[in-house]
């Protein structure tokens, strides 16, 4: 007989897959309807093709992250290594920029202070930040020139890294919200912040948990968002 724990994990995986499918509808809809519009207008330009590329790339990254997260079966930990966080965040900011342009959002990279490498899993962290980015960038906002900040700063326990949005407000249930990741009690666990399924946040949470940390609602210099605390690498002591 399947244990209750196993059943719960199975239910969570099924719900997460549904949620990812919901999130993937948006880029596919964008590509399908943009194509239809360009045929109506009888014009196909480079900007349109770039927008297709940005949407498709975002969808593929979410799928990659999901596959990586699911491969970990909720128990396995990714092997942590010493990673230069600044360079990794700089790459991620660059990679998220095309999608940000689609949503008229500016990506701001904020690396506060000096710090050495952190203990994480390079591919896992990159995948988690991309998943998170796919949700944060698409948050509904009427704000012109909205900002998504990708940042790292020191904390008592290590280095905090995450993504923040200038239009995101503090959620009253924020502390317990992310604990719902394994349960998926609602179709839209993050409906307070967006109209979509926000699956990317839960994919990111799964990845962060497999890297010995967890995603939390945080505030950074006036902006709200999601971030995780990473341990400094022991190599830091040699600096």
């Amino acid at each position, binding site marked *: 007989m399947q244990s209750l724990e196993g059943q719960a994990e199975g239910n969570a995986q099924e719900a997460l897959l549904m949620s990812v499918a919901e999130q993937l509808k948006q880029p596919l809809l964008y590509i399908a309807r943009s194509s239809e519009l360009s045929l*109506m207008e009888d014009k196909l330009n480079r900007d349109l093709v770039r927008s297709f590329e940005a949407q498709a790339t975002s969808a593929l990254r979410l799928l990659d992250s999901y596959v990586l997260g699911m491969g970990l079966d909720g128990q396995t930990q990714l092997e942590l290594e010493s990673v230069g966080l600044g360079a990794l965040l700089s790459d991620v900011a660059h990679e998220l920029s095309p999608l940000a342009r689609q949503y008229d959002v500016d990506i701001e990279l904020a690396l506060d202070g000096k710090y050495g490498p952190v203990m994480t899993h390079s591919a896992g962290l990159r995948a988690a930040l991309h998943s998170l980015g796919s949700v944060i960038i698409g948050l509904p906002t009427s704000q012109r020139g909205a900002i998504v900040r990708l940042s790292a700063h020191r904390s008592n326990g290590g280095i905090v890294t995450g993504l923040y949005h200038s239009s995101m407000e503090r959620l009253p249930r924020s502390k317990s919200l992310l604990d719902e990741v394994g349960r998926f009690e609602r179709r*839209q666990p993050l*409906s307070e912040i967006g109209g979509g399924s926000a699956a990317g946040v839960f994919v990111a949470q799964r990845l962060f948990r497999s890297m010995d940390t967890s995603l939390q609602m945080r505030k950074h210099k006036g902006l709200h968002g999601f971030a995780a605390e990473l341990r400094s690498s022991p190599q830091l002591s040699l600096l």
Partner: protein
Amino acid sequence: MSGRIVLLIEPDRALGGIYVRALERAGYGVMIASSAHEAILAADHQAPDIIVMEWELPGHNGGAFLYEMRSHHDWTELPIIIHTSISPQELEEFSEAFGALGVREVLHKSSHRLQTLINRVSEHAPIV
């Protein structure tokens, strides 16, 4: 803004831009809102002739917004089209609410093309 006005409530900004262009191309003026709150403000600012809205809005489903809209006597007869990503099966539970709230059409973004949306809007709010 002149002529017929569509109030489009679409949380996804990139996707919303596509629908705005398509409706404008068909001759409509379009006000776009990403949430129920913004939609109320927009409708207060300029009365729409029709509302096209996603059912799944930030914070709640579209029902709360429609109850609010329908409570204003100016908007009791305003045509409403639900244009949503939610699957037909999931929407079944809202079918009674759609009837009570005077929803004229339910279109699914996945299966209904832009031209269908334009045709339905033209049907309920024709440009004369």
